[in-house]
Every structure is written in C-alpha cells, then in structure tokens.
C-alpha cells in the first residue's frame, strides 16, 4: 500500500502536484497554503508529482521503484563521492 508523506516545511504551496496528479491524490489546504494528501488509495506511484514539485516535498513509501538503467553507474559512482 502506497504511503505518501509531505514535508510541510518544504512545500511552497504552488499547487503543481494538485494539477498534475492524474488520480486527484492531492488537494490544496487553503488555510495552510500547503498541499495535502486526500486520496492515497488511488496513487499508482507514477511519480509525476516528484518530477513537477519544485521543493522535492513529497516521499512515496512502499512502492515499486522502476529500474533506472539509463543512469550510468560510473556517473552515479562519481556523484556519490561528491554528494
């Protein structure tokens, strides 16, 4: 079962995730001006919201993480050393 966590300190309230999610998983909390998860059960873990969020404010837990063979191991090795 997918579990979504929002880092409210990071969220800038742009609403991009609300607009972009095809399954209406998010809604804007108008009072806080932050996104909130309202329909977690319909999340299909496409991670389009991750791609659009400017603040990297969400985390999806317990999902199938797709293979990313397009990332060069040499490059990730170098990045790991730097970051």
């Amino acid at each position: 079962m997918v579990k979504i966590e929002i880092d409210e300190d990071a969220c800038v309230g742009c609403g991009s995730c609300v607009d972009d999610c095809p399954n209406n998983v998010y809604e804007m909390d108008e009072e806080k001006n932050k996104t909130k998860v309202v329909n977690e059960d319909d999340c299909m873990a496409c991670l389009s919201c991750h791609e659009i969020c400017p603040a990297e404010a969400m985390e999806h837990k317990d999902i199938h993480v797709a293979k990313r063979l397009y990332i060069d191991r040499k490059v990730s090795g170098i990045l790991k050393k730097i970051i």
Partner: protein
Amino acid sequence: MEYQIEREEKEVLGDFKPELIPDACGGGIDDYEEALHVLMKFVGSMSSALEQVSGRGANAIVYQAGKRMGHEAGKMVEKTDDLEKAMQELSEILGVEFFFDMWKPADQTEYTVENGNETIVKLIFRDCVVRQTLRRTGLPQKGPLCYLLYGYTVGAVEEVMGIRGKLDIDHVGPNACLKTLTIKWGGK
C-alpha cells in the same frame, strides 16, 4: 610497421570453432552497461529521426513493427480466452523489463469493466525499457518509441486471445505509465 588503433582495454583472444557454443559471452558488467547505453542512444536517435522525417506517421510505423513482434511472441504461449490467464502469459512474454500489473481505482471492485462487446482493463507498466531509453536520450514519453510497446502488447494479446485489441495511454510518469487495454470480442 602496420598502423594499430590504440585502446586502453586488452583485446579478448581465444579459439573458436563454428559448431561450438561459447560457455561465456565474454566481457564484464561494465562492457554490458556500455553496450546498453550505446544501444539506448542509437534507438533513441533513430526514433526521433523517424519522427522528424515521417511526422505522426512514425507512430504508425513503429506500432506495426511492435505489433508484428507481439504476434510472433504470442505464438509461443498457450491460447486462451480467459483474460486473467492472458495477462499472466503477457507478463511472461514481456518479462521483467516490462513489469506490469493490472490497476483499478480504489472504488472500482473488479479490474475489468464490461462495455457491450468490449472488456476494458487498465495496465500499469512499472518497469519499461522504452522509458529508460527515452530518458537516456532526453526524449519525451508518448512518442513513436512508446508505440513499439503498445504494438507489442496489443499484438501479443491479440495472438493469445484471438481477438482485436487496442491500447490507449492514460498517463505517463517517470516511475510508471497507465494504459487502457480494450478487448473487442467477436474475433478479428
């Protein structure tokens, strides 16, 4: 003296007879990785060039190529008119590189929806070599290369179930893509 291309890697030398099947393919994981990346770049640029030359026609060409491959692959498994069994066989045909599941919204009870002489099922593709290739080449999803997988899936399902099928894209994402498979009963 003859001119020699200089390389960092040592060339692998060995004996070989035509009737022998080598017990190892040679090369380390790094060689395979490099080959995969080269292949991804080749296929990606071929797809974008095809689109440049043929416009939207590129989708149809690639779709047909995929469909033919799908029909060929479908011949290798048992025929069935049971959708669940067909999906199981499809997952064997597509393998782990196209890891998919059936998907439904939480308020829907069954995976399949009947609509007259059609059965509709949503498929979520979690792993996809096409997606990886597009991301490696910096190309958008939903382009001609995606049609290779659509064609392949439709071709395989048509072959296994002896029906006509159609696949539509609902959504493409970096980690999964949702597609709707429509099966038209009543034969081809």
